[in-house]
């Protein structure tokens, strides 16, 4: 759509950049918590055009990267069972204990299929009634409604050989955990546009109210990102702190109530493990009792076991914005996108992979 191309307009970007740089007073350390923002900030060239005073930190915004070692171990345990695993492609190369991956398990004979949509996974189950088909449920609030809707459809259609291994994560509780860390030196948050399209503005209000941190919900085009940065500068200048929805063409302030209710019908909040961060209360989603027949944890009697963290990988510090990826001793040496050690280098949306690909 021509209209949307305006959000890439070079003239507009230039004008916004000039404003940011001329009005900025001191350093601006902002963190984004969305893999699509990570990639967009690098790929669009925005990062290279910003002055040194604007510091971009990439937080825990890639679902693949934050999937805990124990959860990856559970995927791999499942690969050893009599099951057909269906998954988003991004999880295939994530290393678990002993650097084992789903891709490796597949090469050794496990039945693993990459799908684009959880609904495709359901179709595989319907077409193969003799197989137990499991979908690996990772992702934030953007993805969870799609998976919840698929579980509901499975029940409505009486499918009995489909289940989900549910390791969804929720963004606001992770932000709460992050800002509670006294070592974190973030002054503003760029909030994820598509997560916000589901949950709306309210769940982020605590950032401003409780912690005095400004935050902007932004889209993914260069103009969207620069607009958000300019809003941070303006708020600072005016001495106000707020949570602003700047992505109004997609995000309504109240979010998507239908998606929220589907999600809430199938899933309930639970404590969840985040890689490098640890347990965050109520930051995950578990399948509700009523849908137990579609919960792979229950169907296969799986449990999360303690596994040692990957040796030498500093993903945890990278995800918390404490360490720049290229400061990890393994970065670009033992750890590259072709031979990744940690998940932040595996996922194309991971901070380490983005750094490797775009950093000059």
């Amino acid at each position, binding site marked *: 759509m021509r209209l949307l191309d*305006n959000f890439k307009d070079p003239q507009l970007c230039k*004008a916004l950049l000039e404003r940011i740089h001329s009005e900025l007073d001191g350093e601006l350390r902002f963190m984004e918590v969305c*893999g699509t923002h990570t990639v967009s900030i690098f790929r669009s060239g925005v990062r290279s055009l910003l002055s040194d005073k604007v510091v971009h930190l990439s937080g825990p915004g890639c679902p*693949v990267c934050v999937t805990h070692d124990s959860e990856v171990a559970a995927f791999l345990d499942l690969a050893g069972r009599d099951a057909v695993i269906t998954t988003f492609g991004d999880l295939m190369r994530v290393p678990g204990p002993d650097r084992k991956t789903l891709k490796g398990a597949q090469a050794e004979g496990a039945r693993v299929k990459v799908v684009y949509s959880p609904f495709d996974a359901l179709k595989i189950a319907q077409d193969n009634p003799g197989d137990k088909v499991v979908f690996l449920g990772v*992702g934030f609030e953007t993805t969870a409604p799609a998976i919840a*809707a698929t579980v509901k459809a499975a029940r409505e259609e009486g499918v009995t050989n489909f289940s989900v291994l549910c390791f969804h994560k929720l963004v606001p509780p992770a932000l709460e955990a992050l800002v509670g860390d006294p070592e974190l030196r973030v002054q503003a948050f760029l909030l994820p546009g598509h997560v916000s399209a589901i949950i709306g503005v309210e769940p982020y209000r605590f950032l401003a109210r409780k912690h005095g941190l400004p935050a902007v919900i932004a889209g993914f085009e260069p103009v969207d990102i620069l*607009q958000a940065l300019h809003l941070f500068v303006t708020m600072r200048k005016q001495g106000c702190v707020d949570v602003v929805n700047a992505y109004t063409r997609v995000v309504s302030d109240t979010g*998507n109530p239908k*998606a929220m209710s589907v999600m809430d019908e199938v899933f309930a909040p639970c404590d969840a493990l985040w890689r490098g961060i640890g347990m965050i209360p109520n930051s995950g989603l578990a399948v509700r009792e009523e849908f137990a027949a579609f919960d792979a944890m229950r169907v296969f009697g799986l449990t999360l076991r303690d596994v040692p963290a990957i040796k030498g990988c500093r993903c945890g510090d990278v995800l918390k914005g404490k360490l720049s990826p290229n400061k990890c001793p393994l970065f670009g040496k033992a750890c590259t996108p072709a031979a990744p050690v940690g998940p932040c280098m595996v996922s194309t949306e991971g901070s380490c992979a983005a750094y490797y690909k775009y950093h000059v």
Partner: protein
Amino acid sequence: MCLAVPMEVVKIDGKTAEVQIAGTYQNVRLDVLPETLEVGDFVIVHAGFALTRLDREEAIATLKLFEEGLNIALT
């Protein structure tokens, strides 16, 4: 994997719609979409589901603010 993109609705068929972007067509589920759709609308698509309808008026309003605030004429 979080990628979600705007796509144009070309056909609506109960619980699904056919959408396209740059000549690539696909079917998306409408289970979690709160709005009703019309052909020609744009929806944000993620993992085979339409998440929300793109609000043209809001896009125009945002751009207008830029034009006024930054003194720029967009085509």
